[in-house]
Every structure is written in structure tokens, then in C-alpha cells.
């Protein structure tokens, strides 16, 4: 469970940065890109991009494979799926609860009206 929470922390921490999100969005569109291609649209320097890639890699959000001198970066979906599952659990909890709350309040309202008659 600790590992699970640590993983979630890492996923959310990785996603907090707009540059990293832009990188992920691009990897989603292109299904893999070289590091230099990834760095191109950003005004920041290559070492800064490399740092962002390290954070994404540590969070398990990307994979890196090297062929010759070119490193290709790809998106990995698992941590994101895990983060979404975690959020959906809350949604399910409250959605179900509020549906029952509404039904209960409506029955109380009906009771209150009957009494007044």
C-alpha cells in the first residue's frame, strides 16, 4: 500500500509540470520521439528537457530505448491508468452515496408534506 501511494505521488508530481504534460501529450500523438525532436518546440535547453524526461521516467510514465546514438522515448500508460482508477474509486463512492442521499431526502420531503395535510 505504501508503494502504491508512493507511485501515485510520483505520477501526480510528474504530471504537475506543464512542460512534462506537453511532452506526454506529444508522445501520445506521435507514438515515440527522439529526445532532440522532443526538445525542439521548447525554449528551454536540452539539459532541462533531459531532466523532465528523468522525472517522467522515474514515475514510469515513459520508456527509453537506444538505437545507435538515438534515444527514442515512448509513453507508458500503466501509472496513468492506476491514477485514474484511484480517482474513479472516489467518484463511485460519492456518486452512489449522493444518489441514495437524494432518495432519502425525497422520502423525508414526502413525509413532511403528508403530515401538513
Amino acid at each position, binding site marked *: 500500500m505504501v508503494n502504491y501511494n508512493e507511485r501515485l505521488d510520483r505520477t501526480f508530481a510528474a504530471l504537475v509540470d506543464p512542460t512534462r504534460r506537453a511532452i506526454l*501529450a506529444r508522445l501520445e500523438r506521435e507514438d515515440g520521439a527522439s529526445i532532440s525532436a522532443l526538445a525542439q518546440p521548447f525554449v528551454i535547453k536540452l539539459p532541462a528537457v533531459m531532466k523532465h524526461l528523468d522525472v517522467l521516467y522515474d514515475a514510469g510514465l515513459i520508456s527509453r530505448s537506444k538505437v545507435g546514438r538515438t534515444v527514442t522515448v515512448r509513453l507508458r500508460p500503466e501509472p496513468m491508468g492506476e491514477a485514474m482508477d484511484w480517482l474513479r474509486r472516489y467518484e463511485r463512492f460519492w456518486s452512489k452515496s449522493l444518489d*441514495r442521499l437524494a432518495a432519502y431526502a425525497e422520502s423525508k420531503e414526502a413525509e413532511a408534506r403528508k403530515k401538513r395535510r
Partner: protein
Amino acid sequence: MTSLTLVRRIKARPSIVFDALTTPEGIARWWGPDDGPVLVAETDPQVGGCFRVRFRMLDGSEHESSGEYLEVEKPERLSMSWRWTGGAEDPGESLVEIRLRAIAEGTELTFTHSRLHDEESRRSHEEGWTGALEKLERHFLVVERSSP
């Protein structure tokens, strides 16, 4: 989406909905993700007062959450801190905010559970990565299904 917002239109007046939200009898009737029973419901709906609710799910697991009332303005505002207690659930404190607005048919309830992960993830929510995250995941579901 480290903050969750749900809206319900309820055919009951706001004061009745407010009581359903804050009384132990009310809470016992609706709290929980499935039809498992509420085992403990304690409330002290005043600013600084506490609540504690324990429920059992149909799979037999028991869960408890507790917190402190931060805003209690009957019948339109209620907010409280929230934390899972005594289990392996998410550590840390989050925030539940409920607004009740009188409408012709009864009450419009707006429910928000925020600060669901850490401070950082909350900021990230404000920057709006929610849609991006969902889109990315959808994409990957499709890719995974279509790959051999």
C-alpha cells in the same frame, strides 16, 4: 481530477437535504459506495465539531472516515475536512464542500471533494490536466486493445 465535483437535483427542500447530510440517522441511510451498512455515524455539526462514519461494504471490508466541520450554515453551506482513518486507504487530509441552492423543484446540491492527493496534485488540477490525463488514458486503452 484530484478534485471531484458532482451535482444533484433533489425533490426536497434544502433544510431536509441539510439534515440528511448532517444527522446520524440521515447518514446511516446513504453513506457508502454500495448497499453495505453504516456501522457508526457520529456528527457534531458546528464549526470545530467532528464527524466519524464507519461502513461495511458488501465485500465485507470496513472503512472509516472522520474529520472536522469547517463551515456549517444551515441550510445552504457545509464543509468539512476528510481523512480515512484506521485503514490502508489514502493518507492525508482532503476537503469536502457542499452547497445547497433552493430551486423550483427543491434543491440543487453541488458536492466537491478536493485536495484529494497532495498539494502538488491540487495545483496541477487547477492548471487543468484532467482532460489531458483522461485523453491519454483513453488513447492507451485503444492502443492496448488493438495491439496483438
